[in-house]
């Protein structure tokens, strides 16, 4: 472990410090970066965290093949370059990749459908870890199952690497709509809802009484412009992940700053207009509609 000896040894890795870490990211943008230079650009722009990975989703999509956890050397380089939190991705179900990421001291593990799954039945038992996890979800049942497994943060999946925000919109609206419906249910209805969505009753009850997920929920997958980011915020997400959208565009530094500002001032159309000017080319993008069933990443996760 590269953890320091400074922290008192008792009470690390509690639900409160794991979920609390995500609370501190709210209202922010988390950016995919593939090297130290990009990480610096993200930090300079005001990103609240970076996601270290070898290939952004657009390239994973283009290259095909098996996508795995990044080389620890590459993650080390990014950790050394920035002072903001560094996240990294493990394959769905690949608990040893997650152990490795914890051992090298990443701040958050993303058990991600963007990588090729390692287990087509099980997700990682995330409660066994000190490091917190973020997981993707397309609906409330999926989100609550991930939380039951120990996820301390949820992100809607969208369709990563497309630059098409429609799937992110669908997943966010789906989850928020399902939560709204829970809030007006009586106990018998909650029981039925838990059964139908395949989620633990306790978490269903907690979500109903809070009127939101018990953990922070970000949006991911296809966010490519400041207006996309602000739209997700207006719909009710806590913050956004931007994957390929920044560094696959014409002027990454400028676009990164613009997305951070639009996320902070998501209700201020004049400011969003101002930061949207002269950004250069956005990532080319693929309409998620044109993808075959085998090319969809969002359907990974069970």
């Amino acid at each position, binding site marked *: 472990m590269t*953890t320091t000896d400074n922290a008192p040894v008792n009470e690390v890795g*509690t639900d409160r*410090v794991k979920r609390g870490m995500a609370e*501190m990211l709210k209202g922010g943008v988390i950016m995919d970066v593939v090297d130290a230079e990009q990480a610096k650009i993200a930090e300079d722009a005001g990103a609240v965290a970076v996601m270290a990975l070898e290939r952004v989703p657009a390239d994973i999509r283009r290259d095909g093949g098996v996508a795995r956890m990044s080389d620890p050397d590459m993650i080390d380089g990014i950790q050394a370059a920035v002072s903001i939190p560094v996240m990294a991705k493990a394959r769905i179900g690949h608990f040893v990749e997650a152990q490795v990421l914890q051992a090298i001291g*990443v701040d958050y593990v993303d058990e991600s459908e963007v990588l090729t799954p390692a287990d087509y039945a099980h997700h990682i038992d995330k409660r066994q870890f000190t490091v917190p996890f973020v997981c993707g979800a397309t609906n409330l049942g999926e989100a609550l199952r991930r939380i039951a497994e120990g996820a301390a943060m949820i992100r809607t999946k969208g369709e990563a690497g497309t630059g098409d925000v429609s799937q992110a919109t669908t997943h966010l609206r789906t989850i928020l709509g399902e939560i709204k419906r829970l809030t007006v249910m009586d106990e018998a209805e909650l029981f039925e809802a838990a059964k139908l969505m395949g989620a633990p009753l306790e978490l269903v009850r907690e979500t109903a009484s809070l009127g939101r997920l018990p953990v922070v929920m970000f949006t991911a997958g296809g966010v490519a412009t400041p207006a996309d980011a602000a739209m997700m915020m207006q719909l009710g997400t806590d913050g956004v992940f931007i994957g390929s959208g920044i560094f696959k565009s014409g002027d990454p530094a400028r676009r990164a700053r613009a997305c951070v500002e639009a996320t902070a001032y998501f209700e201020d159309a004049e400011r969003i207009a101002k930061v949207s000017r002269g950004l250069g080319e956005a990532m080319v993008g693929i309409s998620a509609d044109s993808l075959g069933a085998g090319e969809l990443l969002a359907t990974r996760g069970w």
Partner: protein
Amino acid sequence: MSDTPRVGVLALQGDVREHDRALRAAGAEPVHVRRLADLERLDGLVLPGGESTTISRLLEVFELLEPLRERVRDGLPVYGSCAGMILLADEVLDGRPDQQGLGGLDVVVRRNAFGRQVDSFETDLAFEGVGDVHAVFIRAPWVESTGEGAQVLARVPEDGSAAAGRVVAVRQGHVLATSFHPELTGDDRVHGLFVQMVKEAQ
């Protein structure tokens, strides 16, 4: 003077909602601060937990840095938790060289002093004027040294760790700061102390 002070919560990024709740429970009315106009008629201000580099950049971009510095200098009661403490410190170690703060606290603060997220922890500590408090530290800073005007309110307990005895809560007149996040525990006494400070300043 009204019985319910209006306390701004800097709402550029971070755990704003948690501070809203704690302030309400402590008898204040939280008001979100994003623009210059939001600074009108505030009795106090909270700088939430979040990413200090992000908040610092947004303060500059949205031209709030100087006006806020001025308000703090003029005696507006301010409370900062975690990132908020970093913003209030006169000197920051391990920050970005271009990181801008508000100042107001005559202390040197070390960013991410306890380590990475895997080192984030909870512990009980004695908080002067409040009592025993359960404290949640998340990639937290600590106070490396304090100047003459700053009063130490809490330290990491003597638990045998390298962090034992480190200063994690300070007050200097109308400025209060904690390394940890009382807003996450549902115990509103630290916010109660701040609301008391706000009322005394009115």
